[in-house]
C-alpha cells in the first residue's frame, strides 16, 4: 500500500511550488522583516505562505482519493512511503521535515512516560514529563501551521528500545535530541522566510537544553552535556547534518519509509 500519487512518483513539494507561486526572493523578505511596520507585513507574508500551502494541500488530498480510497487520511502506516521531496525547495518542505522529527520525539517521550523505566526517580520523571510536553507542543504547532499540507502522522518503530531500561531510554533520548539539534542546525539556512527561521531557532535551543539535561542524567558530573562527541572542540561548533544524513539516522525508528533529498537553494 502506498500513498504515492498516480505517477508512482514524488509526493514532493515541487508540486506545491508549481501549484502556487511562493515568494522566492529571500532578500526581499528578510529586508522587509526589519522594523515595526514590516512586522505586520511579515505576518502577512507568513499568512500568505499558509494560505498558499493550504490550497495546495487540498489539491493533493484530492489526488490521493483518486488513486486509493482506502488510504487512511491523517495517519501513515508501515510500508507507506512518505517523500519529503527536495527539502529546501520551499519552506513547507523544511516545516514538514521538522514536523516529522518532532512527531518522532513526542511519540518517544509519550511512551517513556506511559512505561517509565525501572528505578526512575522523581527528578527524572519531572524532566522527562517536561520534555514530552515540549515535544508535543512543537509537534502540534507544526501540524497546525502546515494544515492540509502536513505529511501524515507517522507510526513509530521503537522495537530496538528497551523502555524498561534506564540506559536504553536515556541513551536513545540523548541520540534523538542530538539528531534534532543537528537537523535544525543543518536545515536553518534552507528556510527562506524570517518568521519560520525564528521559529526554528526558538525550538532548536530548547532541543539543545534537552540534550544537556539528558546528558547530565546519563553521565552525571562530566562534560557530556556539551561533550566532544556533539561539539567540535577545535571550533566550538555544534553538529549540523543534512536532511539525508538525518533521515538515514531516523528511518529505523519509523514504520513508514521517509525519503527526502538534500535541498538546493
Amino acid at each position, binding site marked *: 500500500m502506498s500513498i504515492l500519487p498516480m505517477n508512482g512518483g514524488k509526493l514532493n513539494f515541487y508540486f506545491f511550488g508549481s501549484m502556487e507561486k511562493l515568494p522566492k526572493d529571500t532578500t526581499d523578505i528578510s529586508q522587509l522583516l526589519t522594523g515595526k511596520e514590516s512586522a505586520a507585513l511579515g505576518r502577512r507574508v507568513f499568512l500568505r505562505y499558509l494560505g498558499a500551502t493550504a490550497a495546495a494541500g487540498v489539491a493533493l488530498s484530492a489526488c490521493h482519493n483518486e488513486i486509493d480510497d482506502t488510504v487512511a487520511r491523517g495517519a501513515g502506516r508501515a510500508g507507506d512511503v512518505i517523500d519529503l521531496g527536495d527539502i529546501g525547495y520551499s519552506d513547507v518542505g523544511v516545516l514538514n521535515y521538522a514536523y516529522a522529527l518532532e512527531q518522532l520525539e513526542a511519540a518517544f517521550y509519550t511512551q517513556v512516560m506511559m512505561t517509565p523505566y525501572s528505578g526512575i526517580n522523581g527528578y527524572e520523571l519531572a524532566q522527562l514529563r517536561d520534555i514530552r510536553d515540549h515535544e508535543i507542543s512543537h509537534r502540534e504547532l507544526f501540524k497546525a501551521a502546515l494544515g492540509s499540507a502536513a505529511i501524515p502522522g507517522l507510526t513509530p518503530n521503537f522495537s530496538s528500545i528497551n523502555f524498561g531500561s534506564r540506559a536504553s531510554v536515556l541513551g536513545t533520548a540523548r541520540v534523538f535530541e542530538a539528531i534534532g539539534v543537528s537537523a535544525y542546525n543543518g536545515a536553518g539556512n534552507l528556510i527562506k522566510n524570517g518568521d*519560520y527561521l525564528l521559529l526554528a*531557532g526558538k525550538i532548536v535551543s530548547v532541543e539543545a*537544553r534537552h540534550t544537556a539535561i539528558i546528558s547530565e542524567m546519563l553521565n552525571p558530573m562530566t562534560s557530556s552535556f556539551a561533550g566532544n562527541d556533539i561539539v567540535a572542540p577545535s571550533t566550538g561548533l555544534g553538529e549540523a547534518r543534512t536532511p539525508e544524513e538525518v533521515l538515514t539516522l531516523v528511518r529505523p525508528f519509523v514504520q513508514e519509509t521517509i525519503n527526502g533529498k538534500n535541498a538546493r537553494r
Partner: protein
Amino acid sequence: MNLQNILSEIEKVDADVYERIDHVSRRHVFHNFLKKAAAGIAPVAFGAVLNKAYGQGMATVVDVLNFALTLEYLEAEFYNRALSSSLVMGNEGQMTFQQIALHENAHVALLRSALGGAAISKPNFDFTAKGSFPDVFSNYRTFLAVSQALEDTGVRAYKGQAGRLIPFPDVLKTALQIHSVEALHAAKVRYLNGNKGWITGNTGFPGAVYAGEDNTSQGGASVNGLGGIGFGPASEAYDEPLSKEAVLAIATPFLA
C-alpha cells in the same frame, strides 16, 4: 568560514560583487588585499573597504559577527578569569567550566578569523558589573548566577540576529552551530544553579535577561493550551530572541 567564504556568500546573492568592488579597487588588487587581511596585516579596516564596495550586505555580516564577537570575548574572559582565580568550584564545576571555556575561546578564535581585519578588539571587562557582583570570582553562587545570565543572554542574542543572515547561508549555519552550543551551556549552568534547564515564563535573574520569555504566541498561533500543553511547559518549549539593543543593555555594565 573565512573572508573568502564571506565573499563567495555575497557572490551567491549578488553575482556582480566583483564589478561593485571594481570602483573601489581592481579585482586583483582586491584579492591581494584579501590575502593581507586574512594574514592579519591589512593596513585598512576590511569592513570599511567592503562597506564602501558593497554596502548593506557586507555591513550586515560584519555587524552581526562583531556583535557576536563582543559577547564571546565577554564569555571567554569571564571563564578564563574564573578558572585562573581562587574560586572554589569543585570537581563538577571544574569539568563544566573548563568545557565551556574551551568552546567560548574557540568561538572567539573562529569569529576573529572570519572577520579578519574587520574584527573589533577585545574590550576591557568589569565582571562585578560596576559593583553589582563584587564577589563574582570568590563566591561560587554569584559566579553561577552571572554565568547563567550570560549564557541565557547569548542564546537569545544569536537567535535575534539569525534573520539578518538569511542571505548568507554559510554564515547563518555557523551562527546556528554556535547558538545551539550556548544553549547546551545554559542548560547545564541552570542545572548547577538548581534551576530547570529550560526557562519557565519570564522567571530568572536579572529580569532583563528573561524579559519576554513568557511569550506563547508562536508563528501567529497561541501555543498556550495547544495539544493540551499548559502555559508553563508551553512557554518553556520556545526560547525567545532578544534585540541587539536589549543584549547590549545587558552587557554594557560588564564593560570596564
